[in-house]
């Protein structure tokens, strides 16, 4: 019994740490320790037109849930619109100091959506969502973290034999829900940033 307890309570943290994603921030991240972040509207480099509306809310939400004070998208978009700076491509090219001035944030997150597609091959379909992200110090523009990932997931095509699989794959390709895949990809990427200390929810 004692051996079992030892394994159960001593081994679990080891098992959990084995699953933990690798933290891949730069040494400047530790030095500057950002706490508030402006998530810029994602720049769309794909052919899909509604990527901004679909991806911006959960990019913001996932980073906030990681323990950083993220500026709300409504506020950011309204101020960008007021300053006639709505194009994410142009925003990504602005010096970060400008955002520090307007929003008073510690860091800026730039995102490029590099992949937003579904592939349909005979009896299976796959959803692919890719992001390039970089977190920069808002005052100096110093790179704090950078990651690039494409997540591919196959919706469940099972059931109904070959005909069912064919129909299922075709339907999945037609009405693909990209958001869960994109959300998961963002979550996986943010898991490589150290957990922040801002209290995200205290109901």
């Amino acid at each position: 019994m004692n051996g079992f307890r030892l394994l159960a309570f001593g081994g679990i943290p080891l098992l959990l740490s084995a699953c933990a994603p690798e933290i891949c921030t730069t040494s400047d991240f530790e030095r500057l320790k950002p706490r508030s972040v402006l998530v810029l509207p994602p720049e769309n480099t794909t052919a899909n037109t509604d990527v901004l509306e679909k991806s911006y809310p959960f990019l913001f939400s996932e980073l906030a849930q990681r323990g950083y004070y993220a500026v709300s998208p409504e506020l950011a978009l309204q101020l960008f619109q007021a300053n006639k700076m709505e194009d994410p491509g142009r925003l990504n090219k602005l010096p970060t100091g400008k955002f520090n001035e307007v929003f008073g944030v510690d860091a800026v997150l730039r995102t490029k959506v590099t992949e937003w597609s579904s592939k349909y091959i005979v009896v299976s379909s796959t959803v692919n969502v890719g992001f390039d992200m970089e977190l920069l110090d808002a005052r100096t523009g110093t790179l704090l973290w950078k990651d690039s990932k494409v997540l591919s997931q196959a919706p469940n095509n099972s059931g109904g034999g070959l005909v069912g699989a064919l129909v299922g794959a075709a339907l999945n390709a037609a009405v693909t829900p990209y958001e869960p895949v994109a959300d998961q990809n963002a979550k996986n990427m943010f898991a490589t940033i150290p957990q922040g200390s801002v209290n995200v929810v205290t109901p």
Partner: protein
Amino acid sequence: MKRPFLLAFSPLILAGCAVTPWPHYEAAVRCHMDGKKQECDQDYLKAIEIGPKTQGLHASYGVHLLLEGRRDEALKEFAIEKANYPGFAPKGIDQLALGSATGAASGTDSASRTERSPR
């Protein structure tokens, strides 16, 4: 053995079942970006009900109210955000509160606020 085991793991089990405001908050942001106006209120309010101190939430709702021409309510939401997150609530809130960044702040409805060219 059963009781200590349950006691040790109950926080993890409960955490897995916890209701968070984030799904409603995300839905509200999406709704706002779609320009649906009043339809978004229920998601904002539900998120506030579940997590009244969720970071950014009162600022978000404040912007939404401001663009609906509900200035007084908006200012209250901004004040709550600042009180909940002193030192974090972004400077931009003041710009909006002063009405220098939105036509809606002075009472006009900017229906085209979320219309962006497709990219």
